[in-house]
């Protein structure tokens, strides 16, 4: 148990180090599974592909060879989808390599002549993609800027990277060293032992961990049943349902506001349609239109019910 907590602690430390470097200059950060670009406070999942050479393999910053490269930003922050985004790649003329920052780029006199790729500001509501074919290997700097249309404010991120990348350099070493130093310090100061010897602290940590788990969404205070015109839900057919809602004591629930979503949790996707309640039929019955299932398998229909007495969510599980 202690060991698990110790690991958690170390991971926290390491990510703190990373977060700090990230905040210092808007840029690209490798967060383990996820590579994230921070354009000031705006975040996006960032990945680069060289589909002709390495297929579906993702890169975070450095690229193996000079080749067709596709840069992808999947927004983690909605407002990026409403901001025109500009993308520029320049040869590294700052002489700072990996440590180049926004200020360094701003100080370049003739940015145009260093530019190898430029995509003028464009609104991309869903996902941002650009493609550039590198003709030579070397050090480059990517500059992404997004303009808030309301305030006119421009946010920028700068990420130095290498094309024809040969190794990790001294970065992992540096981080590893930091982590080691930190542990060493904690162990020497006896703090680690003191910390973990208090089992109450461990319990508290476990409790916090448990609290962080997603809360259960199942509520038993409403009973929802459904019926469909043909007896059971059909595949690939638009059809409607009648939802019947009763409370715990069996009384019908009228005048509820109902919102329906759902999907296939095992496949990580939602319903193919956006169904909604079109009519309250009385007696606790509600007409739900626009239902369609496009795959066989396990489905969950999530019924969110709001009444004067409160809110509740009921999940209808079904196999089709």
């Amino acid at each position, binding site marked *: 148990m202690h060991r698990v907590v110790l690991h958690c602690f170390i991971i926290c430390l390491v990510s703190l180090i990373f977060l700090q470097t990230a905040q210092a200059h808007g840029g690209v950060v490798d967060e383990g599974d996820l590579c994230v670009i921070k354009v000031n406070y705006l975040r996006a999942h960032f990945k680069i592909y060289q*589909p002709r050479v390495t297929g*579906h393999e993702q890169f975070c910053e450095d690229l193996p060879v000079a080749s067709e490269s596709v840069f992808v930003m999947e927004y983690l922050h909605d407002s990026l989808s409403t901001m025109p985004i500009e993308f520029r790649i320049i040869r590294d003329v700052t002489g700072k390599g990996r440590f180049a920052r926004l200020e360094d780029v701003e100080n370049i006199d003739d940015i145009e002549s260093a530019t190898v790729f430029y995509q003028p500001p464009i609104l991309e509501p*869903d*996902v941002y*993609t650009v493609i550039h074919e590198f003709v030579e290997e070397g050090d480059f700097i990517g500059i992404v800027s997004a303009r808030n249309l309301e305030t006119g404010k421009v946010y920028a991120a700068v990420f130095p990277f290498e094309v024809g990348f040969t190794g990790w350099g001294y970065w992992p070493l540096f981080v590893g060293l930091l982590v080691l130093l930190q542990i060493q310090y904690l162990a020497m100061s006896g703090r680690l032992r003191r910390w973990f010897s208090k089992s109450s602290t461990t319990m508290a940590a476990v409790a916090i961990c448990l609290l962080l788990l997603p809360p259960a969404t199942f509520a038993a205070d409403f009973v929802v049943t459904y019926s469909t015109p043909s007896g059971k839900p059909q595949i690939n057919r638009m059809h409607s349902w009648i939802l019947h809602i009763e409370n715990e004591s069996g009384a019908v629930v009228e005048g509820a506001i109902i919102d329906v979503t759902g999907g296939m949790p095992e496949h990580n*996707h939602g319903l193919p349609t956006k169904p909604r309640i079109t009519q309250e039929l009385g007696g606790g019955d509600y007409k739900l239109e626009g239902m369609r299932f496009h795959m066989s398998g396990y489905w969950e229909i999530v019924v969110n019910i709001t009444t004067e007495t409160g809110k509740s969510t009921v999940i209808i599980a079904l196999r089709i």
Partner: protein
Amino acid sequence: MKTVINAVAAVLAVAVISFMLWRTPPPAWTDAEITVLRSLWLESLSALPAAPGNAVADSPAAALFGQKLFFDTRMSANGSISCATCHQPERRFTDGLQKGQAIGTSKRNTPSIVGTAHSPWLYWDGRRDSQWSQALSPLEDSSEHATDRTRVVRLIAQDENYRATYESLFGALPELAKADEPAVNTVFANVGKSIAAFERTIMPTTSRFDRFVAAVADGDVEAQALLFTDDEKWGLRIFIGAGNCTQCHNGPLFTNNEFHNTGVISFSGEVPDKGRVVGIKQLLTNEFNCLGQYSDDANQQCAELIFARTGVELIGAFRTPSLRNLEHTAPFMHKGQIATIAAVLRHYNEAPDAMIGHNEAQPLGLSARELRQLEAFLKTLAAPVARLPAMIGGD
């Protein structure tokens, strides 16, 4: 000495058992499997869904008119392109190319038209919601027919036969010189409705797989053995079982006509295609959609359009294509990215992370042999090309 004999016997036994396993005929179909097989059977294809947006959808005269228009090269900027340039009947209405090729190059792979009357959505990204509204787009697409609606209307007005047929179907043509925009659009839409009446008649034909299911339904074991090899049976079992293929490729047309991201690699020199997430937006603003004024649906039911899903989940999602007649629809996928069936199956076996959005398919971990069996099964869906129904007894 004894140990040597023992060892040899053991090796032999293993060899014999594995050979037997190798040759094992697949077990008999369970009732649940037979239900799935029947659901894929061409005989189970439901009656054509009504097309309330197209008043002439089921008119044979309109279908015949539509067929002529489909092959008419005059409806193009250079007088040499017709729908059949890319949708070639002898190739199951595709062209064998990665991307459609006419005045210019299309943005995507040319899909088959067969059976599309059953789909609520047209195009890889479903940016049209009826066959008739779809038929209008290639005419004005600068890389396809590159003509425009006014020129199309003029052609109908100037060709005596077309004019007579048109007027018998839709009433008098407006006078071109005085025609306002809605009047021109109405004639243009009617051209699409006639082409759709023709396309509605293009349906798949019986394949060896369908005859096999008939034999299964009849419990005719002998016929089953004649129709399918053991490999094909194993392949079919993987298709409806471990391969998860029927999650999307289901029903007699082997498609749910819905949108899924399957992580296909981008086309050379292009950013990954965003697919449905953009297609649905285009559909909602298309003047010829189900809710538009040119639709004949008086009730404007349009459930598909009204309840259509939008949002990030549709990034990189494309409409599931039919798997009937794969022998004619290669190269595969929305931009013809994958050349062979074997390569498609390798792709599904790995199910790599999608470049944009999320790949909904899971890695399968099938062996090379299982992949070959799956391929053998897919090939049993080959069938002769249907005769053009409108021509039967036609002019």
